[in-house]
């Protein structure tokens, strides 16, 4: 038996196939050819003893800023950041310039990612033309060009009538609508969560009710239309409860949580830290616990970063003037591993939330170690500690709230199509 690459002796975790055991994984011609005891010749061997070998992670919510804002990030730098975080599949949001609202831009973005060749990129196309919330995009053509879902993220689809039509039209073809759930009338001049912290800082708040009311409305529209509806970056106790009830009713409703919403609270804003400002904002401890409970009981089955790079100039200002968003690709895995250490999720369930589950939601082939599947893997040391240095991130932007913080868990190798696309320490 021969192989191009053998990953030897790691803890192989493949939730889609119910695998969680110490084994070898071997790869030939870019595909997984076996899992078990490898005996034979491999061109290259990676010693993975003590490490976890998992399917390459999927992050279904990132802002890559290309085309249009390449000084913040581009597909090359975003891909580098992704693979450094063990992520081999990205879904990028359409709020670029031009907007990803016609097939040409979808194809351009996919083509650019292929040229970079580090990870897979599946665009999410706009629900409405130019994100204006008025006319629907040509969803069928966008889907044919490679868009895997539809969202106006950055903004909600605010108009109830347009949302109804979007869900109905998408439902006709089985497409998924991803909503940035925010009632703008309640949040419009806010910059952080509304509550005790916003009161002390003297800044306008964004009440949790702004998210809750939009999710509540949308769930009623789901019931009306039968459309598939996904709540992006869910952050409030109210929204989690609404999604849980909708799922119990059998509605096609799903949700994702961002690591910052289950790891941090609005307390981070004390001292006016603009790197803790994002939308939806960091919420209260009650909300954080509700998001964790949603992950525990499976109401929330996906973790996604909402990676939102911004230039330092857009963060070096007063809190109310600063841009919303933080980078997240390189910290997603270690921050999320805390859920395993805290006993919220088993390691296989955590891996499924960053692989199998988003893949199923979006109809992707990634997220498994199926024999014969493209060899996308993430090999990480769940115990290894490292300190986040914002200036060492591969992303072009440095806007992380975890600067100077110690992470536990580090990616050692990332493999895409059988190629090693990231190896810790090899860049320096």
């Amino acid at each position, binding site marked *: 038996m021969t192989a191009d690459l053998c990953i030897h002796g790691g803890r192989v975790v493949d939730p889609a196939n119910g695998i969680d055991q110490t084994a070898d994984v071997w790869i030939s011609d870019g595909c997984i050819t076996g899992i078990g005891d490898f005996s034979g010749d491999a061109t290259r061997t990676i010693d993975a003893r003590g490490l976890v070998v998992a399917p390459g992670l999927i992050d279904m919510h990132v802002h890559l800023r290309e085309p249009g804002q390449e000084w913040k990030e581009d597909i090359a730098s975003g891909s580098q950041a992704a693979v450094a975080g063990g992520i081999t599949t990205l879904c990028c949001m359409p709020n670029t310039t031009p907007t990803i609202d016609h097939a040409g831009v979808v194809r351009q973005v996919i083509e650019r990612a292929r040229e970079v060749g580090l990870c897979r990129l599946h665009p999410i196309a706009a629900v409405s033309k130019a994100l204006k919330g008025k006319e629907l995009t040509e969803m069928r053509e966008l889907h044919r060009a490679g868009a895997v879902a539809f969202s106006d993220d950055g903004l909600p689809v605010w108009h109830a009538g347009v949302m109804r039509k979007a869900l109905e039209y998408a439902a006709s073809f089985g497409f998924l609508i991803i909503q940035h759930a925010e009632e703008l009338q309640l949040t419009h001049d806010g910059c952080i969560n*509304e*509550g*005790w912290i*916003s*009161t*002390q*800082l*003297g*800044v306008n*708040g964004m*009440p949790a009710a702004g998210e809750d009311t939009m999710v509540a409305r949308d769930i009623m529209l789901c019931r009306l239309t039968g459309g598939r509806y996904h709540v992006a970056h869910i952050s409030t106790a109210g929204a989690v409860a609404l999604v849980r009830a909708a799922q119990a009713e059998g509605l096609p409703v799903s949700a994702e949580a961002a690591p910052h919403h289950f790891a941090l609270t609005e307390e981070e804003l004390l*001292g*006016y830290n*603009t790197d803790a400002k994002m939308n939806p904002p960091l919420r209260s401890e009650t909300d954080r616990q509700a998001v964790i409970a949603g992950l525990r009981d499976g109401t929330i089955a996906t973790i996604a970063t909402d990676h939102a790079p911004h230039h330092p*100039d857009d963060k*070096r*200002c*007063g*809190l*109310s*003037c600063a841009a919303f968003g933080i980078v997240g690709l390189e910290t997603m895995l270690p921050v999320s591993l805390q859920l395993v250490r805290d006993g919220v999720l088993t390691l296989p369930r955590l891996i499924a939330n960053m692989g199998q589950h988003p893949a199923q939601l979006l109809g992707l082939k990634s997220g498994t170690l199926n024999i014969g599947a493209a060899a996308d893997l993430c090999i990480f040391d769940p115990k290894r500690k490292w300190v986040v240095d914002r200036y060492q991130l591969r992303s072009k932007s440095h806007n992380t709230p975890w600067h100077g913080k110690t992470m536990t868990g580090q990616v050692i190798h990332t493999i895409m199509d059988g190629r090693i696309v990231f190896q810790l320490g090899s860049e320096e």
Partner: protein
Amino acid sequence: MKHLFGIADLTRQQITTLLDLGESFIELSRRSLRKTPTLRGKTIINLFFENSTRTRTSFEIAGKRLSADVINISAATSATQKGETLLDTAQTLAAMRPHVLVIRHSVAGCCHFLADYLPHTAIVNAGDGAHEHPTQLLTDLLTLRQQWPSVEGKILTMVGDIAHSRVARSHLIAAATLGYHIRLVAPKTLLPQQVERYGCEIFHDFDAAIPGSDAIYMLRIQSERLTDNCAFPSVREYHEAYGLNRARLARANPGCVVMHPGPINRGVEIATDVADGAQSRILDQVEHGVAIRMAVLTTMCGGQNYDR
């Protein structure tokens, strides 16, 4: 004291020291020769991004009475009109090496943010958004000190737009430090979320809050902003519910004083006869404002208790 961002940064002892110093400057400002050489050779820049004639003038007079060189820059004439950022403006001015930069800006927390980039300049917060207004707070305390030796145990009733008020926040913090009690009076539309966590009492009915009050502190209502925002239906209804008039004042404690950070809206939050009446301390506040700012500038510039 390197900077003065807010009352939250001051201890009880520091507050007392500033008030003592301020008290001595009241006397100085009443002499025929109203100038001391204390800050000769010091440069103070008043950088005001919001219009505030009274606060800016108060800082200006304070600096001049101390013999400092005072430069006033207002946003209307500054480079920010050309798109220069707050940081660039502040850094440019800091490079000219003033001893103190006094900043008024609509963005809460702007002084905290700027301080990270201006290592050589002392910053005094002259009001940042709805966050803090420490020199107004100290002014109010100096005014109350003329009334009673200590504010401990006294009840200060604040009425009006608490949500947008930096003075209110500074008082809510100072009350905990100094042991006075605050009653907030406003409809819920003008109260920030969870404000009761400061330890104050909340009233929506002004008449219920008046008995027992030792001082009634009226806040300015910006009627345009607030009616647009649906914070209250009309000035007429506001005045009826939350305006301070003689009948209401009569039900407060004997000797209750009336305060206002100015500028006042006669007939809106305060009736003219009350504003001009014997219990009004509104003009005393203005006078004491100069004295307190002299105390603050002296302290910042290496005068008394300068521990930089």
